[in-house]
């Protein structure tokens, strides 16, 4: 075991080891905490619906929603459900699928070692049968229906669909009732073997643990198993035009008030490492300066009744896609969209205010300290960052380097009508 990476200002130490089979393991001891929290994540998400299966030559398209379906099915074993196993060991377990990742996790306040063994083993021992695959279609069908009725989810995906023409990020993570009907056990195994190779995965453990013992345990666990030689996963080139696909869409739903989001599609993607980290942070700072609660724009829009306390904004970027979202509940969606765009255009001309940028940086540093109180946040974000060759613990030093020039340059890319789109959920008129 090597020396830990020290984060002196934060008073944290991070231990890292790459196992012989390529698995990256990180341990962050958290003294004083009761909870041990571990995530075991594969770099495989809903956007990976086309790839060359392990040991084959040809690109293959799989049904939408299969990564998420696989996440559900991995919990089922020949002798029952892993949920139950964790429960018996006093732990709670869960999993989630995003555009780019599938994560399995447990948290417990006792028997951390046993639970860690269960976590690693269940993810590395798939067991799918036709019968259980069929049964799962009913459950996931209900999950899909639940999200279909959720206006905020429809708003979020509606906006992404507006932005992208071909990129699979526009496909709902769970797929559709129709698409999942084509999932079979063989397809699940094919996806599993391609993406769940240890070299495509990351294990993060945090809590009141002894890092040396954790690493030893994982080493011994992995030695007992055999895996094929790691291979680079072949994915298609995700070509996508720079500008948004659709400018403006409305979806009538059973809601009382409208919900409106303005989206900005990232013009150039393909970044990784510190460059990506800096861009993502800069974009969020710019949004904070322009739309944060202390901004004059927020105050004016609030006073004019254009927005309420659901108004928010966020920027996120991954290797092949990136977007900003700004908006919330409103009675005047057109006016909100118009003013939001104008604020961006004006900022592009005038640049950001230096003093407000400095305050936004300070605010973000405080927010970072708040979030590292949370083991969940550390594990999930660290993994996301690592899959993009970024380091979570670089956030503060990178924030401190961001200048007005960076912010203004970003606005030049951002505040471009061609990159912007609007999606609105509107109350349905009585259909009698």
């Amino acid at each position, binding site marked *: 075991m090597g020396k830990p990476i020290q984060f002196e*200002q*934060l*008073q944290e130490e991070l231990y890292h080891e790459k196992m012989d089979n390529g698995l990256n393991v990180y341990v962050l001891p958290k003294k*004083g*905490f*009761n*909870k041990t929290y571990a995530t075991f994540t594969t770099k495989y998400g809903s956007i990976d619906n086309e790839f060359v299966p392990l040991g084959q030559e040809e690109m293959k398209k799989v049904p939408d929603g299969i990564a998420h379906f696989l996440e559900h099915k991995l919990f089922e074993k020949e002798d029952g459900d892993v*949920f*139950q196993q964790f*429960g*018996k060991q*006093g*732990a*709670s*377990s869960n999993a989630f699928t995003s555009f780019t990742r599938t994560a399995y996790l447990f*948290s417990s*306040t*006792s028997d951390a070692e046993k639970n860690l063994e269960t976590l690693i083993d269940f993810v590395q021992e798939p067991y799918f049968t036709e019968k259980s695959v069929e049964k*799962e279609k*009913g*459950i*996931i069908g*209900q999950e899909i*229906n*639940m999200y*279909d*009725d*959720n*206006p*905020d989810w429809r708003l979020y995906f509606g906006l992404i669909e507006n932005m992208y023409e071909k990129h699979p990020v526009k496909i709902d993570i769970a797929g559709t009732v129709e698409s999942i009907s084509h999932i079979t056990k063989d397809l699940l195994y094919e996806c599993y073997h391609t993406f769940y190779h240890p070299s495509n995965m990351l294990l993060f453990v945090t809590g009141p643990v002894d890092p040396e013992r954790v690493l030893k345990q994982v080493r011994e666990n992995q030695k007992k198993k055999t895996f094929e030689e790691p291979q680079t996963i072949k994915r298609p080139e995700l070509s996508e035009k720079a500008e948004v696909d659709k400018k403006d869409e409305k979806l009538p739903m*059973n*809601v*009382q*008030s409208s919900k409106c989001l303005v989206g900005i599609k990232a013009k150039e993607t393909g970044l990784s490492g510190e460059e990506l980290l800096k861009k993502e942070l800069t974009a969020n700072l710019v949004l904070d300066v322009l739309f*944060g*609660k*202390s901004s004059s724009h927020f*105050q004016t829009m*609030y*006073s004019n*009744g254009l927005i*309420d*306390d*659901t108004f928010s904004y966020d920027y996120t970027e991954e290797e092949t896609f990136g977007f900003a979202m700004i908006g919330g*509940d409103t009675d005047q969606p057109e006016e909100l969209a118009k003013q939001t765009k104008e604020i961006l255009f004006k900022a592009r001309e005038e640049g950001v205010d230096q003093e407000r940028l400095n*305050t936004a940086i*300070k*605010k*973000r*540093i*405080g*927010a970072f*300290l*708040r979030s*590292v*109180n*949370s*083991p969940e946040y550390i594990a999930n974000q660290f993994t996301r960052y690592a899959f993009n060759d970024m380091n979570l613990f670089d956030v503060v030093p990178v924030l401190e380097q961001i200048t007005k020039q960076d912010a203004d340059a970003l606005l030049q890319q951002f505040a471009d009508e061609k990159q912007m789109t609007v999606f609105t959920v509107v109350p*349905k008129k009585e*259909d009698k």
Partner: protein
Amino acid sequence: MSFFQEKQTKLNGITVHTVKTDKYKTNTLVLKMMAPLKKENVTKRAILPFILQRATERFRTTGELRNHLDELYGASLFADLSKKGENQIITFRMEVANEKFLSEKTPLLEEAISLLSDILLRPLLKGSAFDDGIVKEEIRTLKQRIQAAYDDKMRYSNLRLVQEMCKNEPYALHVNGEKDQADDLTAENVYEYYQQVLKEDKLDLYLIGDFKEAAAGEMVKKYFDFSANTHAYPETEQASKQHVEEKEVIEEEDVKQGKLNIGYRTNCLYNDDSYFALQVFNGIFGGFSHSKLFINVREKASLAYYAASRVESHKGLLMVMSGIEVGNYDQAVSIIKEQMAAMKNGDFTDDDLNQTKGVIRNQLLETIDTSYGLSEILYQNVAANSERTFDELLDGISHVTKEEVVESASKIELDTIYFLKGKGAQNNG
């Protein structure tokens, strides 16, 4: 071994609770204000925290106030409302970086205490009323907040169940107030109510983090310098338990998925001895993914993505919730009823019992890993007027026997079945 130490002091009518711990990178302040849920006050009370956090004597616009928070390394400030039994509780929560992790040594904790006291005691006034413009804006936001509950069908069906089940009880009131009362709010009448709040509310302030307790105490004393209130509490207006008669309410909305919510009376409150057994009951019945509801409704019958239950500790309710196909209503209801009957018959194993106790213990220990969770657990005592320590809580759970679980099950009565029936999927997509 104790997990933490809570120290309590009385100060000008506020109870100050401090927990010193070096677990966090931040210090947390939580101010809780409790008063009985009353129809005539519910909406005034719902708007009050949102008016208070808009501006103060010192920070006369919301922009200035929010900018000050940003300058304090992004100190966070949130207001929200909740119900505990027949009480309506306002919570202000602030979290501020501990300066020991910053290169610049600003006295952030003192600034935070000072700001929180300003918000409570020194709001922006125009004459002897709140600022009229702010009140008008907050009325609009309040109405939207009330409306938003109708847009999330999961929340909506739960709300409807409570309204149907607790008709004629204060608990039926919505925590965010009533929309038809919102237009009657004025800068004057809310201010008048605010003065009553300062005199009568039960006030509790939690300070959690790594700070010098004596110094923090002095700061609270210095900034919360108002005359002692005479809070009318505890009023112990006990939930009147009427004769329970099973009823079924079915409503139709344009949704794909039907929402099934079932309410039971537990006849057990937080400070009852049988509370521990009720918690274990709920864990075996529907609280977790190893519970009967999850296994039988979701895993075996494949009817739902979620099927769970939770306990309203201070009101004595047990609520079941699930999302199902409309056509599966009868089947889902009968499976849920069967699981309740099984619980009453003691149809569960020692393994189920022990596993559930383990998971509840886990959950409690995890809750106190966050400063907010810790303050919520500590506040349970205040809300229930009890003095149960955290160790007693853990201990209580661990000693529950199978007989006690069956005993607590026997007291549970089905009150209302609420079904929000979807119109089906034909008009969607």
